[in-house]
């Protein structure tokens, strides 16, 4: 071709093409996501090892607690139990961790010898995703609808009720909602059999695709879902309302009215679509927040999800399990973020052209 006569041209063009790909918002978001996972994994690796106490000390303390065993016996047993070398230099441990992580291997639990961390995490993660995911999606849908409704009925009683209710519910920390459900509905009024609803499903239930099992799972999940739903709905109502109020004053809405478009079409295609945009990017942040909060909520409901397992791992200083949960949770949040970014570029064509899918 012509380009071959000029040796520098194809290289320059290729460089420009690679740069062009790099500028693509989705690729940028992917690179940023990988970087985020790497940085989080690294930070937590060192933070975890800075925590006082290590798994062996904690097991020794556990064994000598009831006075049945001397310190030496306990030490010998603990040392034989843990085939781990915590004396290896930290950089060496770190290099090994990163190498394993790159291959998708999260190592083995210290405390439950021989159990791969991946298996432990995969056993608890679906439950948290089920409760957090369902709760957040339901609250997003309901909140956006109610916020839009409030904005269209601005300064009417229903708007005041929704706005005040939104402020009220969003000011209650999610773990207090869980605690209040237990205290008021469970213990004072005795409307809910709290103790029977502990766990992810009733003991004796055979896991499978039977109607009984699914129903049982939903009953057990209903309390955490309610908490995540209530904890975030206020935020969506208030944000959607103020975004809609802003969008209603835009010129293009007046223009659409002047063109004689129906109110329903203006509400969905012009006002609602533009108002919901900034909320989409907030969704991932809310997810990160909710998963963090699950540690207390799952404890109150004794729900065997990521939060409860993580708390146990922290108490036992089970480093690989802690790390594994951190990495998986970060990946989950980062993927949610990435989806929000992609969705954002789809919803807002301006972003795709101008570059930068970070929103706001």
């Amino acid at each position, binding site marked *: 071709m012509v380009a071959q006569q000029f040796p520098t041209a194809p290289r320059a063009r290729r460089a420009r093409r690679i740069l062009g790909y790099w500028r693509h918002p989705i690729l940028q978001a992917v690179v940023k996501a990988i970087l985020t996972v790497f940085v989080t994994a690294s930070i937590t690796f060192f933070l975890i090892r800075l925590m006082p106490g290590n798994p062996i000390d904690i097991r020794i303390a556990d064994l000598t607690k009831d006075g049945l065993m001397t310190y030496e016996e306990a030490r010998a047993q603990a040392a034989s139990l843990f085939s781990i070398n915590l004396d290896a230099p930290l950089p060496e441990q770190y290099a090994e961790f990163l190498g394993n992580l790159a291959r998708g291997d999260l190592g083995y639990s210290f405390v439950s010898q021989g159990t791969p961390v991946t298996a432990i995490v995969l056993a608890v993660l679906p439950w948290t995703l089920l409760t957090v995911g369902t709760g957040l999606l339901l609250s997003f849908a309901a909140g956006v609808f109610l916020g839009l409704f409030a904005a269209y009925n601005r300064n009417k009683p229903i708007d005041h009720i929704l706005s005040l209710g939104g402020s009220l519910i969003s000011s209650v920390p999610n773990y207090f909602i869980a605690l209040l459900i237990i205290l008021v509905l469970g213990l004072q009024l005795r409307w809910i059999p709290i103790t029977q609803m502990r766990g992810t499903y009733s003991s004796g239930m055979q896991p499978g695709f039977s109607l009984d099992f699914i129903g049982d799972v939903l009953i057990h999940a209903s309390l955490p879902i309610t908490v995540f739903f209530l904890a975030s709905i206020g935020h969506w109502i208030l944000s959607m309302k103020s975004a809609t109020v802003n969008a209603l004053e835009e010129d293009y809405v007046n223009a659409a009215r002047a063109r004689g478009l129906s109110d329903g079409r203006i509400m969905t295609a012009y006002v609602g679509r533009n108002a919901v945009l900034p909320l989409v990017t907030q969704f991932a*942040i809310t997810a990160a927040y909710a998963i963090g909060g699950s540690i207390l909520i799952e404890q109150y409901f004794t729900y065997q999800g990521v939060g409860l397992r993580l708390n146990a791992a922290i108490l036992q200083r089970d480093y690989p399990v802690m790390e594994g949960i951190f990495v998986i949770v970060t990946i989950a949040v980062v993927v949610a973020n990435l989806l929000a970014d992609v969705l954002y570029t789809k919803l807002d064509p301006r972003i795709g052209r101008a570059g930068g899918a970070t929103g706001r």
Partner: protein
Amino acid sequence: MTAIAVPRTRDTLPRPVEAAFEFLRLLSRRPSGLIGFIGIVFFLLLAFVAPVFVPPQEQSNVNEIYQTPSLQHFLGTDNSGRDVLNLIVQGGKEILSVAILTSGITTLIAITLGSFSATLGGRVDAVLVALADIVLTLPTLIVLIVISAFARPTNFVSLAIVLSVLGWAGLMRQVRAQVLTLKERDYVEAARSLDLGLFHIIFREILPNMRSYIVIHFVQGMTGAIYAQVALIVLGLVPFTGNNWAKMLYFANSQGAFYFRDAFWFVFSPILAIVLLQLSLVLFVNALEDIFNPRLRSS
């Protein structure tokens, strides 16, 4: 996003007083905002002034464990027979101090990083934004649990510092976005062409125009700080010696009072105090947003 335009009618009053009057006048038109403001003042008085007049009650009384509310004990008694109302009066100071300090530190970090990031641009900007994005995606509470496990914050200053480590990112990005738009304004261009220096441009030209923004985020930051610190204390990760609302819940949890029917008021009182404080802050913030955003104010 400019501060409230103060009509210069009362020429006799100094400007800050005048602005305060104008602010209260605007606030009084929003009943919920006024309630929030009164709530905040109430909690500040309860936390910092009331303990001066009400002596703390150290004595435990085994004969009066888990009493239900009565005339002697308006909110009942706790697991060692102490008056719950007294504990509530004593227990606000630490919570509010940590909240104010944390929010102050995070706001300071966010404003500094955000404005430098936007004015300097280039590589500094890219690195700081990437850092903020990473912090935003971290499950904050979980990371805080690990940090506080090794930092072991033993007083409220160190707890506030721990809480500030991760709290700045959201505001930093918003400050950056604001500064990016303000940067293009004529008066900033003028200051730059006069070669007034980066510090002058940021602190004298740009930030004064973001006052309302900063105030709103300071109050919002307090709600976030309260959420995180209560969670950490309830989980028993903050070895405080003192007494505060969250510590009451920690003891209630470790004594099994959650499942003890008569202990309802002992558990419920600190929850109510924290929720009402949060509610006051949220209502106040909403009113502030209303007041500072002329678009929302118009009707």
